[in-house]
């Protein structure tokens, strides 16, 4: 199984991985429309910075995913590719997964009418190479076998 490998030595803190992630999860998949016309999706990766270190962090798609364990109704589950994803239809925003994730990579989307939505990296199901990996200008993210 391939996951996104984080190479902090190469990260230049440009945030383009976040930009690409937002575009990929938008309706239009058009960079300008995604940012200017649509309700902007939340970036599933987060670029952390503490001079001189910077790195982008996103879900590690753990083998023993504590978030799946913690989820009360099976919304957080493993899909047919083997990646850990959320079912937006059933997620009720209880944030138990957030409490459980040791990497802190699940974000809260509180913009839905009724319930919140747990939002995390889904490893871009519509793509061969994840958007963040393709966008990274310095190969600080690579898509590799574990």
């Amino acid at each position, binding site marked *: 199984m391939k996951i996104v490998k984080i190479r902090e*030595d*190469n*990260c*230049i*803190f*440009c*945030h*383009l991985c*976040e*930009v*690409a992630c937002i575009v990929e999860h938008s309706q239009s998949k058009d*960079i*300008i429309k995604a*940012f*200017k016309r649509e309700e902007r999706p939340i970036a599933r990766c987060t670029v952390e910075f503490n*001079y*001189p270190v*910077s790195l982008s962090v996103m879900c590690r798609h753990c083998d023993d995913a504590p978030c799946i364990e913690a989820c009360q109704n099976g919304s957080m589950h493993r899909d047919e590719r083997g990646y850990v994803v959320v079912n937006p239809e059933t997620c009720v925003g209880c944030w138990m997964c957030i409490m459980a994730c040791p990497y802190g990579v699940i974000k809260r989307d509180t913009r839905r009418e009724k319930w919140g939505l747990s939002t995390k990296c889904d490893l871009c199901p519509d793509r061969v190479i994840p958007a963040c990996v393709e*966008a990274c*200008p*310095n*190969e*600080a993210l690579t898509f590799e076998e574990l």
Partner: protein
Amino acid sequence: MKWMKNLKTYVPPSFVVERDDYRCIRCKACVEQCSFDATFYDEEEDRVWTWNANCVGCNRCAAICPTDAITVRRADPTYRYNHNWNGHVDGLKKRAIFGGTPVVSMGNDKPYPIYWDHMLLNASQVTNPSIDPLREPMELKTFLGRKPDSISVSDDGLKTKLAPQLELDIPIMFAAMSYGALSYNVIEALGRAAKEMGTYYNSGEGGLNKDHYKFKGNIIVQVASGRFGVHKDYLDVGSAIEIKIGQGAKPGIGGHLPGEKVSETISETRMMPKGSDALSPAPHHDVYSIEDLRQLIYALKEATEYKKPIAVKIACVHNVAAIASGIARAGADIIVLDGFKGGTGASPQVIRDNIGLPIEVSLAVVDERLRQEGIRQYVSIVASGGIRNSMDVVKAIALGADAVYIGTAALVAIGCTMCQQCHTGKCAWGIATQDPHLSKRVNPDIASKRLINLLEVWALEIKETMGAMGINSIESLRGNRLNLRGVGLNEKELEILGILPAGE
């Protein structure tokens, strides 16, 4: 508003950064990437804007912007047109306002003639066949070092004992650029590319980081007037030793690595205190004559058991031919000629822009002089300073060079946009900096691949041109000025370059 313009220190900006506000998605990549404090994000206004006065035109912001919203333009001079003065007004103002002589980097940028572009190459037609390099073997292999007057061969092979030689798979090496001037990652990339391509990179005058000893076999180590980082292991790791007398960008003056660039690791490598300026004196204080130079050459030969060729690098100056002859007679195995367009990490602008000679001319006169004196075989000549493309390499070799050094071209290959800010240590492309965060902008995996691509493409282009000329070995091109014709040159220039005019 973080900045307010002040008439007292006002010099018109050199660049204007235009941002298409519709395309700008406020991702702030440009803000983070601008290392010259020229780009800002205003939270209240939700606007990204540029303080043009700080912009150095490095184009990092334009390159990173994911929506292509940025155009960096040269600011048009707004003064009344005056051919004589326009180019000097800002320089005058800067000196008057700030009281110091401007320091710049990279090579001479003034519009002096570029002789490469006044020389055309030959090709075979009808009377002799051209060669297809993709079908037939082409030899670029080059040996640098002293050649014997004659050789004797027996059935067991070569009987004559040869002086130590540097073996190059392509006649292109990476010029001296120190660790200190350049970031660790750049040196790493140069080393890897040199190794892969069977050539050499030059350590420059800053010594060698322990990690880079792994490139043994592909390093030329430099001994400069400051003698930074010179010790036995350092000399041993070099395949050749280069004594740096001068540098094309700043003939006659020493080196200066500002204290800000002397980090922990640099201080260790250079064997000097952290944060202090690394000043190399203008002359070597033990070399005041050709005889002194001979002593230094032989001291280094002695220290390395006569196993390594010794190169002497000089800036091309008025008497370059006579000086080169002296160097050859002093026992050097390689002479490096650095033309006035060669780059630097820092030089006073007046020096960079007004001193020295073009490499084309210097190369021609040195080769000619050494031939006339019958000592050309004592030394190999390496041309450096302003080699921009593979055809400059071909022309240099036809003019008499054995090989060339590239510096600026290699940096451009890995990102440099020649914004001439190397001396500030803030290089937005992560090349000429010791800032650990900025240095990350060069990924050695990507950079070494690019350098390898560059050299491979140049090698192919050189072979193509040689094939067109009907030459299958670079040896046959060396000093073969009959393959050059001058255009737009006067009689004296043609005579000095030793080439015929087009049509003759």
